[in-house]
């Protein structure tokens, strides 16, 4: 097969829709277009049946029952619903929430909103490998703690948290404290079971697992029943937790994506791990001064987040115009700050500026990996030849000994 450019290796940002998923969705745009809430005719019944089948597939993927799945517009909404919904419903019981510095903005900014309303939030740091320190978590949980939100796998560094140990700890310390996980990046990639991890609320999204954009779910435990306030009011769909006409084709696609993920996860995980390790080993063998950010052991099979010392990430991306990856460099974000996730690991800002994130997915091939390795090596070498920092490093200058003047934009 001839190599097709550009190459997409940014599967943490989104994934293409699997053709099998698209095929399952198509009838629900045209012939079977009914509103799943229409109880009076066959159009509605067919739509409802399709939604319920999808609900079953999504539930099965995470070890839940179908009635525990609330469909949403995506994980941003699910995170908001879980965190705000739980805090609002249970505010009579306490005022404290716990999360982690490396969480997705949908979690962090929901927490910030609650802080403005008077809730107290603890932002736990992570260890240098990106994992939560269980001792610190245990110390943070009090009898006022309503909810702990800790993600399954990080979207930048792919680091997987030990949710089984975390769930056990939370319930031991305060059995009323709810456990929410943003499971978006790990779902369908690594095993995740709501019972094993004793999770009460879990956010999912279809578009990171080869389903369509704009559809997600919140798992809400039934036994014992977890209560949350809705954040969207209206017709009372999804057992009152999320009003609004259901996105039937999207949900059907999500269901098919979940079914495929369940069937193929084990084999796909092994294939992606082999590709990722090939990518990592060849880059590190051919380029000195490259550093993997976050735990290599506890990591999504398809993730590689790596810093190329003395090379700035955005200039590297510019050289890699036939390759779609992302960077923790400030220059690639609107805020002009380097990645807060990388900084939470304690790595220097210059290393955050020098990072690239690769997200390998279902449709990447070994041929693509080979091409990416040779391109990266060539471009990093070219940029190092242009880098005053690389020159100083080669001359044995300790960059930390230099008094840098702060740039004009800081």
């Amino acid at each position, binding site marked *: 097969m001839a190599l097709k450019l550009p190459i997409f290796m940014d599967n943490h940002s989104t994934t293409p829709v699997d053709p099998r998923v698209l095929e399952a969705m198509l009838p629900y745009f045209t012939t079977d277009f009914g509103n799943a809430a229409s109880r009076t005719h066959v159009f509605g019944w067919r739509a409802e049946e399709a939604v319920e089948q999808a609900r079953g597939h999504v539930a099965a993927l995470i070890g839940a029952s179908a009635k525990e799945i609330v469909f949403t517009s995506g994980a941003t909404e699910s995170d908001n619903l879980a965190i705000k919904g739980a805090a609002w419903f249970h505010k009579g019981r306490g005022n404290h929430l716990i999360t982690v510095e490396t969480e997705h903005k949908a979690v962090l900014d929901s927490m910030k909103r609650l802080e403005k309303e008077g809730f107290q939030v603890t932002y736990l740091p992570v260890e240098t490998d990106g994992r939560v320190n269980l001792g610190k978590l245990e110390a943070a949980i009090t009898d006022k703690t309503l909810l702990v939100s800790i993600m399954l796998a990080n979207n930048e560094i792919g680091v997987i948290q030990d949710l089984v140990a975390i769930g056990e700890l939370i319930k031991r310390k305060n059995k009323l404290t709810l456990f929410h996980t943003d499971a978006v990046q790990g779902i369908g990639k690594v095993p995740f079971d709501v019972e094993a991890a004793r999770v009460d609320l879990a956010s999912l999204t279809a578009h990171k697992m080869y389903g369509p954009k704009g559809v997600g779910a919140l798992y809400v435990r039934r036994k014992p029943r977890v209560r949350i306030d809705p954040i969207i009011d209206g017709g009372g769909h999804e057992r009152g937790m999320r009003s609004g006409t259901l996105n039937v084709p999207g949900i059907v696609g999500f269901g098919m994506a979940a079914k495929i993920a369940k069937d193929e996860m084990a084999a796909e995980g092994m294939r992606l791990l082999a590709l990722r390790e090939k990518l990592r080993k060849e880059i590190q063998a051919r380029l000195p001064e490259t550093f993997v950010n976050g735990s290599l052991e506890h990591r999504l099979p398809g993730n590689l987040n790596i810093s190329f010392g003395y090379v700035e990430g955005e200039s590297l991306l510019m050289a890699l115009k036939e390759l779609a990856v992302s960077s923790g*460099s*400030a220059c690639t974000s609107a805020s002009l700050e380097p990645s807060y996730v990388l900084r939470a690991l304690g790595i220097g800002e*210059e290393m955050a500026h020098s990072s690239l994130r690769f997200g390998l997915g279902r449709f990447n091939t070994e041929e693509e990996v080979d091409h990416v390795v040779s391109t990266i090596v060539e471009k990093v070498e070219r940029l190092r030849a*242009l880098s005053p920092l690389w020159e100083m490093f080669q001359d044995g200058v300790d960059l930390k000994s230099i008094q*840098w003047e702060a740039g*004009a*934009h800081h």
Partner: protein
Amino acid sequence: MAYSEKVIEHYENPRNVGSLDKNDPNVGTGLVGAPACGDVMKLQLKIGDDGVIQDAKFKTFGCGSAIASSSLVTEWVKGMTVDQAMEVKNTKIAEELNLPPVKIHCSVLAEDAIKAAIADYKAKRAR
């Protein structure tokens, strides 16, 4: 981010990359920016006894706009007198390269690099 054609052109074919002997009394070296901020420019100017800039070399760690800004100023300052080079303004650099507002700091850094290199040269001469 979309880059202007001129930025891409300088990025792909940077002019005057390299280093001059920093111990040469006729060479002024400017090192500006900071690794933590994501851009560092090293600009070196070789200045004749008549005050005319004979050669300019740069190395830059930074985004494409930072590389292009430094490449551009090495072209501009060659043949200028020291006094003329002191007059090179970041706004001209930004205009020539069509830099968007978030990249203006790259042109500021390039202007700073010229001034720092000249200051180094003058300090050497004063010794």
